[in-house]
């Protein structure tokens, strides 16, 4: 019987889920994705983690805990960088070793470090070889998965651009994918905005090359990949939006610096929301309501 691969639904899952799922199903490897974050998973995460870890990492460890007895392998990506000026959060560097010390499950070899020659293709090749597949098979699966991912994101990016024509107020949300789409962190907040009649524009969903280039207009020395993509969205749509919302999980290392810098440079109304595992949604709602009132008056 084939071994089952477990994928925690957190962190890079939201960036690469099409790629991973297509790749594994092309290779006919059964996989299981942990469910959307719920209270049980958050509780698991709090048990397993250190109390100063960021909320997203705690949730990640909760997902790992959930998958522990349901799979044979864990897919834990370790991403060092995508180039010298495209580095990632240190949590991504340490993720493999943190998970390795929390659980005894074997972890698939998935290491991306462009500065030292470990490209994404190499990472997938090693992962496929570890699962007992042949090189040619892996290559086909990888390219197919890559194409499918591109198709998927092209569609989303198009929809995101079209949303700029929707009803006012249009709000650009600056948040990492794993914060924005997490069931317990970001989604309740975006739902609140939508209920109040705002159009949400996701800063992640823009042409990545353009966003990386445009980020230089706001900060010339920024060297984190995810932050650059998010910040780069601001110059692209600056004239078509009414307000900006910064959403981060407490205590995010990148956002603590980058968001503070961006707030000092933009000339749009903005709201900074930091989500903690004990913060109540009622407090958030009040802040969101008053922010929406400001925007409505301005329009």
């Amino acid at each position: 019987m084939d071994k089952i691969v477990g994928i925690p639904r957190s962190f890079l899952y939201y960036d690469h889920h099409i790629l991973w799922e297509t790749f594994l199903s092309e290779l006919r490897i059964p996989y299981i994705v942990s469910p959307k974050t719920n209270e049980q998973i958050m509780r698991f995460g709090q048990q397993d983690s250190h109390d100063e870890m960021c909320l997203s990492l705690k949730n990640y460890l909760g997902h790992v805990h959930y998958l522990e007895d349901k799979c044979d392998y864990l897919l834990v990506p370790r991403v060092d960088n995508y180039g010298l000026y495209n580095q990632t959060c240190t949590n991504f560097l340490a993720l493999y070793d943190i998970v390795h010390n929390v659980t005894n499950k074997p972890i698939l070899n998935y290491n991306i470090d462009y500065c030292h020659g470990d490209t994404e293709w190499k990472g997938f090749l090693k992962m496929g070889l570890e699962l007992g597949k042949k090189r040619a098979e892996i290559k086909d699966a990888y390219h197919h998965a890559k194409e499918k991912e591109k198709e998927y994101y092209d569609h989303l990016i198009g929809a995101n651009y079209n949303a700029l024509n929707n009803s006012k107020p249009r709000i650009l949300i600056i948040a990492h994918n794993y914060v924005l789409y997490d069931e317990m962190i970001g989604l309740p907040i975006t739902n609140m905005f939508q209920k109040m009649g705002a159009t949400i524009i996701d800063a992640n969903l823009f042409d990545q090359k353009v966003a990386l280039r445009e980020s230089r207009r706001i900060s010339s020395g920024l060297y984190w990949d995810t932050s650059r993509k998010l910040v780069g969205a601001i110059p692209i749509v600056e004239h078509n939006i009414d307000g900006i919302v910064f959403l981060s999980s407490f205590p995010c290392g990148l956002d603590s610096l980058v968001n503070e810098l961006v707030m000092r440079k933009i000339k749009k109304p903005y709201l900074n929301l930091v989500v903690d595992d004990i913060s109540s949604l009622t407090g958030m709602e009040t802040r969101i309501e008053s922010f929406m009132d400001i925007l409505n008056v301005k329009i």
Partner: protein
Amino acid sequence: MSKYKISFPHMADYYVPVRYLLSHLMEDAEIMVAPPITSKTIELGSKYSPDFLCTPFKYTLGTIIEALECGANVIVQAGGGCRYGYYSELQIEILKELGYDFTYLNLVSCGKTDIKKIYQMAKKLNPHFSVLKACYYGFITIKMVKYMDQIDHIIRENIGFEVKENSFIHLKQEMLEHFSQVKTYRELFSLYHQYKKKFLNLEIKKPKDYFKVGMIGELYTIMEPFANYQLEYELAKFGIAIKRYTNVQYLLFEKKHEIKKLLRQTSDYIKYKMGADASDNIARAKYFCTHHYDGIIHIKSSFCTPEIGAMPVISKVCSDYQVPVLFFSFDANTSEVGIRTRIEAFYDMLEMRREYEKSISRN
């Protein structure tokens, strides 16, 4: 009267070599050492900093503000890896908002140094700047840092057992004063050997079974005595010898050669580099565990992401080898009394362990 006044953020005693280098390269400009860090500095720093940013940002911002208040108009910041390299951009924004007028130079960003930019800046500050001179004085400065770190190793091992109070600190201050007046490398070299002998000949009273404690942690907090509330001296009062590998010499010159070796030594716990000094610290923790140290103290500033990632691993290493470990997380508002209580409890625990081991071996 020159128009440039150069200043830089503090870190421990390293202002001596930095001042030495700058004063020899920028003859026209005035080199101003920022006022020493006090509780007012950190108050100023945390007032203008974002809330959940790591504490070194607050300390450096505080010292820069104090230096600017004293009339400095050129700030040199070291930068570095992790978040350090990006401090400068936000600090510039914050200081501009406060209405200061200054030039800012960040040396290292994202692990790379922009030599061209530094050269242009040096030419601007001093039109007579010569590269050859910079190489020579740079060499002396590097050696001075190395010698200072080696003397510090001796001090840390012996200061807890000094007979005459403050003899080590006074001798070190005397040494630093002499160091900052050297003219040639030969002079520095002979001074170093003189003082090394003096330090080794200082009168100490070392009992046979003294406690040895290893110190690991985040680089700024562990090196700047004010940021860790003079933890090393507090420990020394209990008669504990301290071993600490993190210093400027290690971070700048040895780290890139040793990191592979360290990763190999800890291959049963970690596989990859975990960002900043996390993997070094895990390797050091394992070294202390296997070399009969009595305990380990881990220091970090609050919200230091790489060290938070390393902490579960360090506690696993220590529980495997049955070595006690004490975690400190320093913030702007940590109270000194709380720290002393924890150290006292840690020391009592070490003593009780020692007695327990003795009673077992007796039976």
